[in-house]
Structures are given as C-alpha cells and as structure tokens.
C-alpha cells in the first residue's frame, strides 16, 4: 500500500463511521493502478469481491491552473488549457479562446470558424478513440487499444503537420488560429477519414457487440437520468443516460453559432435506437449503464466524421483569413463571463472575472471530468471489484482535467 505524507492509509474518516465488519477489507486502488486512468485513488471497502463503498480521492495532479490564470494574460494561459484534458487539447484551447472572445465581443472570420470545427471534431475523434481503446484495456482486451491508438496516431500526425505538436497544441487561440493549414493537408485528412470509417466497424465487432464485452458492461453501473443531472454529469455520460443534451446544439448562442450551418445528430438513444449507422442495442443493456456510455462515444465518432467532412468542404469554399490573434497583453474589458463548450469528456466551462486589466482577476475552470467522477461512489455501491474499472473507464475521466 502506498504511504502518502500526512495520510494514514488505514484511516478514513468516512469509513470509520460505519462499523467495519470482520470480513471487510479496505483496499487502496491507486494512485498507481493500471485502470484508474491516471493518478486517481479510490478507496474500496469490500466484502470479498463485493464493493460496499468506493471513495475517490483526487488532487494528485493538481497543478494550480486557476491560480496561474490569475498571473498570466489570456493568451499566455492557452498552454495551460492544453494540459487540462491533455487528450483533447484543441477542445480545451477552443473553450478558453471562445470565453475570452465572448468577453471581448470578438467574432472570428468564417474560414477560422470552419477550421476550428474541423480541428476540434478531429480531436474529439482522437479523444473518443483513446476512451474506447482504454476501455477495452480496462475489460482485459488489449487489441482494440492498439487499433484505437493506431488511428489516433494518424490524427496526431495531421495535428503535428498543422501546429508542430502532438499533444499540447496551443493551436486555437484567442481571435483565430495560430497558423493556416499546410498545403495538401485537407487531402490527407480526407484520405484518413475514408480509411478510418471501416475501422469503426472493426471496433464495434471487437467491443460494442462482443458477447463478453456486453456481459461486462450491460446493466453495470446504471446511472439514472435524474442522478446524472443531479450530479452535473455532462457529455457522453449524460447522453448515455438518455438525456438529449448537446451544447453544440443547446449551448450558449456564442458557442452554438460556430456550428450554425452544420448538419449532425446528437448521439443519444431515442426509443432504443441510436443515430445510424450503428449496430443495434443489445437487449441486456439498460439506459445509463456502462455499455451506453461507451456506445455514445462510438456513435459520436461517426457524427464527428460527418462534421469534419462538412468542415472540409466549407473551409475550402470559405473566403478570407483565419483570424488575427489578439495581442499578448491586450487589455480586457471589465466584466465576468462564463462559457461552456462541448468537449469530448463533457461540458468544459471557463470563467473569467476581469477588472479591466490585461491579466484576469480570477480564472475558473469548470471541469467535466470532475463532475462526472463525483458520481463514482453512487455507481460503485454494491458492484464487484471487477466492475470498478469498468465504471471508471466508462466515465472516461482525464485526471489532468479533474485536478486541473
């Protein structure tokens, strides 16, 4: 067991309230554990294989992003947003850039808008690929993980060609984007999409409709619609519970106007059916279980591919430039602004409180994984030890975003 400074591993104030029965075992899952997706620590009170209580302990990756935000200008803060959800840096960049733009009352040119959609949706595909792959890994299936990472690598190659970075892009910036696409990039991207679409079916075969996979996920960790909303769960976790809510369609007008002329479906189960093309829902699956949470992401990938294809077309036709980044030390107007965007993990919200200086007075990052993770104790109560990785994986958390 790990020894953490200042914390007695056997002393948990929450558990000591209830009588510890003789057969019970207190197990420390994490912070170093293969399937906690980072440095999450979950203390499990178990009776044999039965989990009586799961208490998440977070903060191992806390990097004081909000405090740093009070010391740097908005453009300087962009690299820090990359490091929140490091699997979807572009989406984080976009959220922050839009928030600052909302404060400044800035609108980017058409070309930049389409390019943003293109990049962000590509990143959503990449992030969902990691989610699907690692979820397979959580359930003991290694091969889908490699397939997913192979496809993700291709997206990262595209990103590298765009901005030179493979993980922390800082590409989307306040007022536009850092650079235009290199020549021939769009063709490469289209070639990738053509090649990628059949791979989704492979992944469905290996995971979504695989009998063992369904047995492991269907009916496990059922999150009811009410509970999901109560816990502020967002993104695929919320939609997995059957709530038809996607900020790209239902969000702040300042955000939804980015997608105004795009055609896509929200990945949610309506009358037992998901947007086509997708395999049918297995009969064992209950709305809100791990299988649905996983499947929403797979369906979203298809929709994102659609969006990327549209964005490519629109970008090709668009006139003008990709926007001018604001000055590094541009003075911000006084005021408060809060904006949430639909990131792969859920709704990522940024808030800026400005007193009229170049440096914000207060920066707040409302993280989707943070809220999604907070529902873990509810989901894990009464499950088996083997279900804990299945549930944690289906929530698809990134600890960089949880701890910020």
């Amino acid at each position, binding site marked *: 067991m790990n020894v953490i400074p200042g914390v007695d591993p056997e002393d948990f104030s929450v558990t000591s309230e209830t009588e510890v029965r003789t057969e019970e075992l207190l197990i420390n899952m994490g912070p170093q554990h293969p399937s906690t997706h980072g440095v999450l620590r979950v203390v499990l009170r178990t009776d044999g294989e039965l989990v009586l209580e799961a208490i998440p302990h977070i*903060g191992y990756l806390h990097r004081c992003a909000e*405090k740093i935000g009070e010391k740097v200008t908005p453009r300087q803060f962009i690299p820090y947003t990359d490091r929140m959800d490091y699997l979807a840096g572009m989406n984080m960049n976009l959220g922050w850039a839009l928030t600052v733009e909302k404060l400044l009352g800035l609108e980017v040119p058409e070309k930049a808008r389409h390019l943003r959609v293109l990049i962000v949706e590509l990143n959503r595909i990449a992030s969902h690929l990691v989610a699907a792959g690692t979820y397979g890994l959580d359930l003991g299936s290694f091969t889908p993980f490699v397939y997913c990472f192979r496809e993700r690598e291709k997206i990262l190659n595209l990103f590298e060609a765009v901005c030179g970075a493979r993980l922390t892009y800082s590409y989307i910036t306040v007022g536009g984007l850092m650079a235009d696409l290199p020549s021939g990039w769009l063709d490469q991207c289209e070639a990738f999409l053509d090649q990628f679409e059949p791979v989704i079916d492979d992944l469905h075969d290996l995971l979504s409709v695989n009998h063992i996979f369904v047995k492991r996920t269907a009916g496990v960790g059922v999150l009811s619609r009410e509970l999901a909303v*109560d816990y*502020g769960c967002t993104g695929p976790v919320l939609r997995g519970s059957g709530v038809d809510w996607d900020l790209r369609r239902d969000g702040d007008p300042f955000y939804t106007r980015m997608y105004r002329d795009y055609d896509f479906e929200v990945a949610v189960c309506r009358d037992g059916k998901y947007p086509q093309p997708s395999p049918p829902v297995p009969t064992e699956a209950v709305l809100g279980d791990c299988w649905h949470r996983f499947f929403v992401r797979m369906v979203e990938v298809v929709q994102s591919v659609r969006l990327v294809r549209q964005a490519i077309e629109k970008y090709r036709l668009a006139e003008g430039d990709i926007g001018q980044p604001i000055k590094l030390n541009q003075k911000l107007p006084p005021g408060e602004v809060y904006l949430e965007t639909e990131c792969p993990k859920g*709704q990522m919200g940024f808030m800026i409180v400005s007193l009229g200086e170049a440096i914000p007075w207060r920066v707040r990052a409302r993280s989707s994984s943070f*809220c999604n993770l*907070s529902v873990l104790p509810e989901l894990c109560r009464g499950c088996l030890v083997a279900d804990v990785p299945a549930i944690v994986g289906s929530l698809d958390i990134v600890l960089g975003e949880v701890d910020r």
Partner: protein
Amino acid sequence: MSIEEIFQHLQEKFGEAVRPGDFTSIDPWIEVGPEAIADVCRFLRDNPALRFEMLHCITAVDYLEVDEKKAAKASFVPHLELIYHLSSLTLRHRVTLKVMLPRWRDDHPGQLPRVPTVSNVWKTALWHEREVYDLSGVEFVGHPDLRRILCPEDWVGHPLRKDYQMPIEYHGIRAR
C-alpha cells in the same frame, strides 16, 4: 425565460433576500442573500416554471487588493463572491446567482465565512463546495463531508485567496 422573469419569480417568493444584480452584463446575474441561497436554489429547482435541474459550477472570487498602493484606488471593498451557474435542460434557460460574503466571518481573520450548503439540492455541489472550501475558504454549513479535495488533507491555507502565502516547505519538500 429571461432573467427579469426569473427575478420576478424569486422576488415574489423571497422578497428582500434576492436583489437584482446586473441584468445588462454579458452573463446577467441575480444577487441572493447568503442565508437564503439554499432555499432559493431549492425553489429554482422545484418550481415547474423554472426547473433548474443542473448546477454547473460554483465559483468563489476573492476581492482583495494586497498591494496597499493599489488598494486605495480599488473599485471594490474587500469581500468574497460565490457565483452559481444554473441551467435547465428541459426549459433551456440559464441563470447566474451571486452570493456576497465577508472575507472572514465577523472580521476575525481565520474564521471562514459561512453559507448554507446546496449539496442537498444538487448532489454535484458535494464536490464543488469541497473545492471552494479547499481553495477559497468558504464553510458550507450542512455539507455532509466538507474536506479538502484537491490539496492534501493537512494543507494550510486556501490558495485562491488573494492574500495566500505559499508555505516554505511541505513535509520536507521545498515549496517556495
């Protein structure tokens, strides 16, 4: 539903406890008295015309100018603000609530200001309030498990306060 109508509803029910904030800013807000916040939130959630099912975020902003020269010219008196962002998934509207708090309860430095918890209205507040308690130092009365969440349990101070001093060392690790 516009912010004015929401305010109307609240005014009828709670009277003096809610005050109009700024309806013209980018994100219009309503000010709520600290003692009424839990009731207001419950009303906002349960009223069929409002139905704010989701609490997005609780933010604490510390208004304090540490630099004494600038403090004289500051546009505010030192205080803490709690900002609640709510939305309704069914009625598709949003609202922002603000609670003004003193920086310290009864102006005794070290005594955390108190505010009723909303964790019994929205479960998501369980963690958000812990985070605010941890980083900004607000005590939520009635919270079932108010512990630090991001900082270690034996951390001293509340880092997002403007007058926060980083400790010199923490368990033998140099911090400053």
